[in-house]
């Protein structure tokens, strides 16, 4: 039997069981439209790549991490100082988490400004927003795991804010903490969220998101119908370009991890006073700073409650974007209004994040 015959037979054997031909046909027929905004398509792929990096480095960290109050900090220090390349894995995991959120934001706003959320991609938008929420959940739960001073007190502040949510606040805070205060139960609980519950939900949602993208095809700008544009084959042409971008991101990630290794800090001491200038991760800074600016009482309402209600309303408007910022096939609709809201949100997040960081 010649090598070609062996290859063909092997393919047939797997195709009969896995449907490889269908996947190959799918890749053969999938195309990417070419227009001035084609570069924005790469950001979804970057986010997916970073999620893969998180899964891989997270699994390696799991080999040594011990999720108890007595051992968590020391086990992370062990990873950083004793395990071969442990410092690199942990630093990449931490930097990648931040880059992942950043690129997810870029992806979301690129979708928003190109109005790619419009019919029939409403569900793709909703699943993407849900994924961003899950990524933030990963960030919030993972922040506590090294059990150092900063993460301990930041979690206290974060769960205190959750406790002010109307009606369900106290129950929500108790659910997150596993008790009345941040402690051993919180660490165990956050670990379970971080390595089991959130990955399961995210895996399912990523699958759904990709399926929806595949089902509806790549979106084009509203004034450039897909049939008027030339196309590039997804595989291998677009895929190889995406691969170059991934390599670039990998180089960035490695540089950040090697030049600025993620700090470990001091072990958490619940009896110590909170470190000065405590603040949450950068992607929560805008909200954190806004809540700080709101007076304790506004008319008859509690300031913090009013702030949370405002965020809730804004989030609702944002999630429901495809349903109120509708655009008709002839291009008329609320595209300008949606762009205005998007510009406002970008300006707000950028300014308040900077203010929260420097003030």
């Amino acid at each position, binding site marked *: 039997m010649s090598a070609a015959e062996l290859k063909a037979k092997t393919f047939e054997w797997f195709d009969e069981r896995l449907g490889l031909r269908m996947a190959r046909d799918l890749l053969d027929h999938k195309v990417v439209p070419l227009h001035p905004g084609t570069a924005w398509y790469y950001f979804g792929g970057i986010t997916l790549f970073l999620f893969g990096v998180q899964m891989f480095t997270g699994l390696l960290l799991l080999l040594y991490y011990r999720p108890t109050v007595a051992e968590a900090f020391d086990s992370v220090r062990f990873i950083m100082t004793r395990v071969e390349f442990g*410092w690199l894995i942990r630093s990449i995991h931490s930097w990648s988490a931040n880059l992942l959120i950043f690129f997810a934001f870029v992806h979301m706003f690129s979708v928003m400004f190109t109005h790619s959320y419009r019919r029939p991609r409403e569900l793709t938008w909703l699943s993407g927003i849900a994924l961003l929420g899950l990524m933030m959940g990963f960030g919030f739960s993972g922040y506590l795991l090294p059990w150092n001073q900063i993460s301990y007190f930041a979690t206290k502040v974060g769960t205190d804010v959750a406790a002010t949510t109307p009606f369900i606040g106290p129950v929500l805070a108790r659910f997150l903490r596993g008790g009345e205060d941040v402690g051993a139960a919180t660490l165990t609980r956050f670990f379970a969220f971080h390595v089991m519950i959130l990955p399961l939900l995210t895996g399912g949602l990523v699958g759904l998101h990709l399926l929806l993208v595949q089902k509806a095809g790549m979106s084009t700008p509203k004034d450039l119908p897909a049939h008027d544009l030339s196309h590039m084959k997804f595989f291998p*042409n677009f895929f*190889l370009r995406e691969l*170059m971008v991934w390599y*670039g991101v990998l180089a960035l990630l*490695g540089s950040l991890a*090697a030049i600025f290794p993620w700090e*470990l800090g*001091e072990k958490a001491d619940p009896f110590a006073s909170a470190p000065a200038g405590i603040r949450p991760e950068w992607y929560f800074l805008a909200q954190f700073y806004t809540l700080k600016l709101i007076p304790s009482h506004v008319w008859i309402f509690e300031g913090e409650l009013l702030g949370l209600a405002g965020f809730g309303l804004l989030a609702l408007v944002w999630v429901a974007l495809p349903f109120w910022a509708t655009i008709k096939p002839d291009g008329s609709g609320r595209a300008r209004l949606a762009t205005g809201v998007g510009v406002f949100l970008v300006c707000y997040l950028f300014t308040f994040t900077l203010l929260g960081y420097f003030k």
Partner: protein
Amino acid sequence: MRAPVILFLLCFAVWIVPGSAAAADSCVTCHAAIDDAAKGPAALIKNDVHVTHGLSCADCHGGDRTSDDPDVAMNKAKGFKGKPARAAIPKFCAACHSSPDYMRKYAPRERVDQFELYQTSVHGKRLAAGDANVATCIDCHSVHDIRAVKDSASPVHPLHVGETCSRCHSDAQKMAPYKIPTNQFQEYKTSIHWEALAKRGDLSAPSCASCHGNHGAKPPQVESVSAVCGSCHVLFEQLYEKSVHNAIFSGAGGGGGCMVCHSNHAVHYPSTAMLAGPKAVCSGCHDAGTAPAGTATRMAGWLDSLDAALKQSETLLTSAEKSGMEVSEAQVRLIDGRESLVKARLALHSMKPADMQKLVDEGMAIARATQKAGEFALHEKDTRRIGLAVSVLLIGIAIFAIRLLLRRMESS
């Protein structure tokens, strides 16, 4: 008819109320109106701690403060005592301050043995012997504007007590009859104790009263110097008492314990220069070339070596930490090394070189280990940079290769 009567009564009330207030403490009212030295107490008293506790002139000086008539207010029949004679001042204050029952009403935690202690002091004994120039209560605590000791404006607050003592003790004219030196405060101001108290604001650091006592003030005797220093430097005292120097310095012809090496008022930050070199205090008794002088030089060498080794480790670890390397374990270990150095300096006071050498060896082992950790971290940092450069280069090659592949594919 009724309106003018009400108006009159109101005017009367307005007139009479301030008049009543004046009568409530006629001492202050009258003395404030006098233009000579007698006005002083009335001007000062508003800040006095006794006034803040509701007491007034008459509570010390007697008399009737409710009367506007000087003859009644300062009538001896009303208990008026007037200005006490200087020699009578301690007893005058003690009338209240030595009474536990009285003091309990105002300051229950305040001591009541000040007068008793004062009588044991050099000041008290000389006063009893008829020398009215010595310090009495008011010379230190002031008079009529007396403040609580914890009040930072009080002359006996820890930050000011040195200056207060020096008002007399640095005055050569005042001290001439007693034939005692007047440079104590000047020397004290060069000491580590003054630096801790005045510059670092450590109120627990010793001032004059911490060593000499306050109300029972007297210079420590030779045999009690180490006990005075040991009341804070406990371990030093314990080791010193076991040393060969203790018996010699405390015995006849000795100079007085700790102060033989460290001085009394000008206690400077100790260094190994006290052991060896041109300023060595040991050389005051041990000639160069003798066995004890050699031992002192050897001990100085050990301490210097350990200090230098620990500093080198610290520099390396700080540099590694600034580069983002994780060296917290070594830094914690370095604290143990510094403790060994402190213990070795402490062990010096027992004058048993073997004990000291053991601690120095322990510290040196830690210094070597932490130095190695620092060097390893810095080397690791360089390795990481090289690894990064190689990785970025490989990634660049991969990107370039993909680009070439794409170009070839798309051109064909």
